[in-house]
């Protein structure tokens, strides 16, 4: 993976460094990068921040990371807390803890914890448990998410959407004790829709399952519908598929 040469850079303890092209960048302790950076491997153990844009094959955050510019990477692993002020373009993203971003375009996203997005979240696959807050649209191929707190999105659309009530994961008792586990969304549109504990204005799909704890004003389906006995559906209509 030495595409950007072997000019490695390491901050141990505390320090800051200018931008540039590097092989491996490692921050052990507290460090700051003051310009745009291109690297093979960008690793933070402790607390790190980057003022400019970051392009790196790998980004690993153990602790906390804060990015003021755009971030582009193939693989990003967050254990702890990360903030990307602008857009995050990533092939495979794993979050254990918390991530907040301006927008996310990804291939796969796996969340154990919480993700917050100011604009849109796009991914071929979004899986995980915890909570998500997306001010714009969640556009996904497959969404499979277990709720452990309050989640919300303006719109969720895609191929398969499955929202379930989270059960038995270690952090669940912590988050779940104090908050309701519920997703609030304006519109869900997907071919296959399965929902639990979701409040929605409109759900449109081919095959739709409205599970327990749901409150949906309008369901439009073209294939099958299944409504749990303790779900509330204001109106459901079958629409003709061409």
């Amino acid at each position: 993976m030495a595409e950007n040469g072997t000019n490695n850079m390491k901050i141990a303890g505390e320090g800051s460094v200018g931008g540039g092209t590097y092989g491996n960048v490692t921050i052990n302790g507290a460090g700051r990068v003051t310009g745009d950076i291109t690297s093979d491997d960008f690793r933070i153990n402790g607390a790190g921040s980057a003022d400019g844009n970051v392009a790196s094959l790998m980004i690993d955050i153990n602790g906390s990371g804060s990015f003021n510019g755009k971030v582009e990477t193939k693989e990003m692993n967050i254990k702890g807390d990360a903030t990307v002020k602008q857009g995050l373009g990533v092939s495979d993203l794993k979050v254990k803890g918390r991530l907040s971003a301006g927008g996310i375009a990804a291939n796969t996203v796996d969340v154990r914890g919480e993700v917050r997005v100011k604009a849109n979240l796009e991914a071929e696959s979004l899986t995980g448990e915890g909570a998500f807050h997306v001010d714009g649209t969640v556009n996904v191929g497959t969404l499979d998410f277990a709720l452990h707190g309050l989640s919300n999105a303006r719109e969720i659309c895609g191929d398969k959407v499955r929202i379930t009530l989270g059960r038995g994961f270690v952090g669940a008792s912590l988050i779940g004790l104090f908050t309701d586990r519920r997703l609030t969304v304006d519109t869900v549109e997907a071919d296959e829709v399965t929902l639990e504990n979701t409040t929605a204005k409109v759900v449109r799909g081919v095959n739709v399952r409205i599970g327990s704890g749901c409150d949906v004003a309008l369901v439009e389906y073209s294939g099958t519908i299944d409504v749990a006995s303790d779900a509330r559906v204001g109106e459901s209509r079958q629409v003709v598929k061409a």
Partner: protein
Amino acid sequence: MEPGMISKKDLLQHTGISYGQLYRWKRKNLIPEEWFVRKSTFTGQETFFPRDKILARVERILSMKDGDASLDDIAEAVSPDLGGISLTLAEVAERGIASEAAIGVFRSAHPDAAALVFGELVSLYVVDKLLGTGDVSLEEARSVLATLEEQFGAFEGSDGDLVCVRKMGVSVCGLVTSSAELRLESAARLVARVNLQESVEALSARL
């Protein structure tokens, strides 16, 4: 509903595509974000599309898929990366991208130009289209070219239209976003409105 628009529901029924396909194409940038127009209706929010554009695009994607093209290939075809291309004026004439008249307009603005990069080719192509339909005079074509060259960059990544307005023989041109509605005073007349994204696509098909 506005004329020229189609609702999402009607689009899916009309074309037989699924939600999954529509949103996958959007993720792959086969369908631009600006075409998703959200409007409030009495049943809540609904999404509309510019009818002709979206139907043509869906048809194109489906026909390319039948030919076993991957989504990435199709993305390349509908929004190609032509940043690196450069043609001489002789090649422009040879490939029939622009007529002698349009090339003349370009030459008078850039007497020393030897090779044209993609942005300049698009400008030239639009000028040629306008001259070809007889909508604008040579003089107006010069100001269209200058406007495109100055302002085209501002519309990078989003869809814009070139508009040309004439009142009492005096013409003005400018760029607007393609979804914008334009109302003019009664003495003024919209002489031409050309979509830049379509021009980019038409041009890239000829390169």
